[in-house]
């Protein structure tokens, strides 16, 4: 490592403190802006993925393959209790539950709407999903009364049907034998998630109630949902669990909601795209500054080349100076971004005034920015590349100098 050239380059940055500070500030602000925006976007997507998994899709789902094609209730998962037991033995599985599912109509005296009726085992279900924590009405309970025919609906649906806690809703559907049937359900809980579409389409009843009404065969279900421990890859575990349920379709959340996966993947690229655009703009400013520097130091550079510093060393000196100038701003920008992300990642940025639109898309109204170590490393590399590229043109100008002419007074 050429410490002398590094030392000269580093000290040269601080020869003109004001000029260098302006460039460093520009890089800092540019980087912070880009990282903060990317962090907010990434946090929004992370939240959306996390909420979707915890509220709706879980990490892994298992179905009869034919059920996925047309949602006919005769396509079952047999011996579902034993399957649940076997799946629970996997040390990466946090919780597992099973559901009976059928489409039906939910109606009151004023109106009716089509819904997906989810028959759940509340004790197991609340370990897998967190609907129970999304109640908006203080009178809501999560099937704790033990009474039959209780239903949990969303606040959106409650408004649509004009019902409240203890109101009655008529649910009609086709049973296992093809008969049109139904029952009256009393509203026991009203919830609200971040996904308005999910809220409007889904209602929850006890599996025992729905199985009875549907005349379902014993020990069957339509869907098994699995929540994994933190940081466990869903796809890998899905492949493992497939061995327990070889004849059924097993899907990780990425397969259940490809849009979610796509959105999640895109955020990684967005950071690079954002930062590249910012660094290209800042790169021009750095080139401009370094050209001024070269012009000012014509005699000095001429003297250095005259006494024996070869062109490669001169190139290195200018490249080090340019890159370090960019890096100082980069490091400061990263530190500020890290503090911003650490603080607001915990506290959150409340955008409730526009949250209704966001919630329609499945995003939370409180944003928690997220940036990972790999993001910072990518930015550092980008800054260094910018520094190196920005040094090329000034160096070419410097090397075109003839030492004899440059040192002439």
């Amino acid at each position, binding site marked *: 490592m050429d410490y*002398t050239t590094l*030392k000269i380059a580093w000290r040269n940055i601080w020869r003109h403190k004001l000029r260098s500070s302006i460039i460093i500030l520009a890089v800092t602000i540019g980087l912070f802006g880009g990282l903060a925006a990317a962090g907010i976007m990434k946090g929004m997507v992370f939240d959306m993925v996390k909420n979707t998994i915890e509220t709706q899709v879980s990490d892994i789902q298992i179905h009869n393959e034919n059920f996925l094609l047309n949602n006919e209730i005769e396509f079952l998962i047999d011996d579902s209790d034993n399957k649940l037991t076997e799946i629970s033995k996997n040390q990466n599985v946090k919780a597992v539950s099973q559901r009976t599912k059928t489409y039906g109509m939910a109606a009151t005296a004023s109106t009716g709407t089509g819904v997906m009726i989810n028959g759940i085992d509340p004790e197991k279900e609340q370990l897998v999903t967190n609907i129970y924590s999304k109640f908006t009405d203080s009178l809501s309970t999560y099937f704790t009364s033990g009474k039959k025919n209780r239903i949990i609906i969303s606040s959106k649906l409650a408004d649509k049907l004009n019902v409240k806690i203890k109101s009655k809703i008529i649910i009609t559907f086709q049973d296992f034998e093809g008969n049109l049937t139904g029952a009256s359900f009393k509203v026991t809980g009203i919830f609200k998630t971040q996904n308005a579409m999910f809220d409007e389409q889904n209602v929850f009843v006890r599996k025992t109630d729905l199985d009875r009404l549907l005349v379902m065969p014993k020990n069957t279900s339509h869907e098994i949902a699995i929540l994994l421990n933190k940081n466990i890859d869903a796809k890998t575990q899905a492949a493992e669990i497939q061995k327990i349920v070889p004849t059924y379709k097993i899907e990780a959340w990425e397969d259940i909601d490809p849009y979610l996966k796509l959105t999640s993947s895109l955020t990684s690229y967005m950071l690079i795209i954002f930062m590249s655009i910012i660094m290209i703009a800042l790169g021009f400013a750095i080139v401009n500054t370094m050209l001024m520097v070269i012009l000012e130091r014509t005699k*000095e550079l001429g003297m250095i080349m*005259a*006494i024996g510093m070869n062109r490669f060393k001169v190139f290195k000196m200018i490249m080090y100076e340019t890159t370090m100038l960019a890096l100082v701003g980069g490091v400061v920008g990263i530190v500020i971004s890290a503090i911003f992300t650490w603080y607001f990642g915990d506290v959150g940025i409340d955008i409730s005034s526009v949250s209704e639109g966001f919630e329609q898309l499945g995003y939370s109204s409180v944003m928690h920015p997220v940036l990972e170590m790999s993001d910072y490393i990518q930015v550092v590399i980008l800054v260094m590349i910018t520094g190196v590229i920005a040094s090329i043109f000034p160096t070419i100008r410097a090397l075109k100098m003839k030492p004899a002419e440059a040192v002439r*007074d």
Partner: protein
Amino acid sequence: MKVIEIKDLYKIYTETEVQVKAVNGISLDFEEGEFTAVVGPSGCGKTTFLNMVGGLDSPTSGTIKIDGSDISTLSSRELIDFRLHNIGFVFQAYNLIPVLTAKENAEFIMQLQKKSKAEREARIAELFTAIGIEGKEDIRPNRLSGGQQQRVAVARALASKPKFILADEPTANLDSKATSDLLDIMRKLNEHENITFIFATHDQRVIDRAKRVVTLEDGKVLSDISK
């Protein structure tokens, strides 16, 4: 022993319609340990001559041999390397790197030559004592006087023990006392280290101290007097 042998040296500029012969057929030899002033009016070709001897400019024709090696045939990359290892320079101004201390400036060429730290330390200590600026090793040039800066430049030029030193108007920006002190130091080092010094100068004080005076006029040697 001859350090520099110059034969039929020409430098002709043809950038305008009129041909300018900056150096017009100079043949000179320089021995080891010389203390020579190259004098003449402005435009006589002193600086051009010195630049060619130092490998900073290429001759139109003629040969320059340094220790037997013809530098007029070297590429620019080879010339840079040759200068680094064989020639010391003292310029009129902007001699020192502003962001390095006096010591760092003086050892700069030795660092380019990848000399060891021990070797550098020993040599610089010896030279700083000889040039009389002990205690100012860690001071940057902007806090040294003009005379002190030129002394550091001399130390740097001598640090790597080159074959000869070229000094182009080194006293031009100095007052009389600083000039006198600098020249005394250079003369002392010339005798002690037996390194050839060649000055391009108008300064009578330099001429008075020189052992040999070469006078140029219109790119030619007008006179060559050894004292």
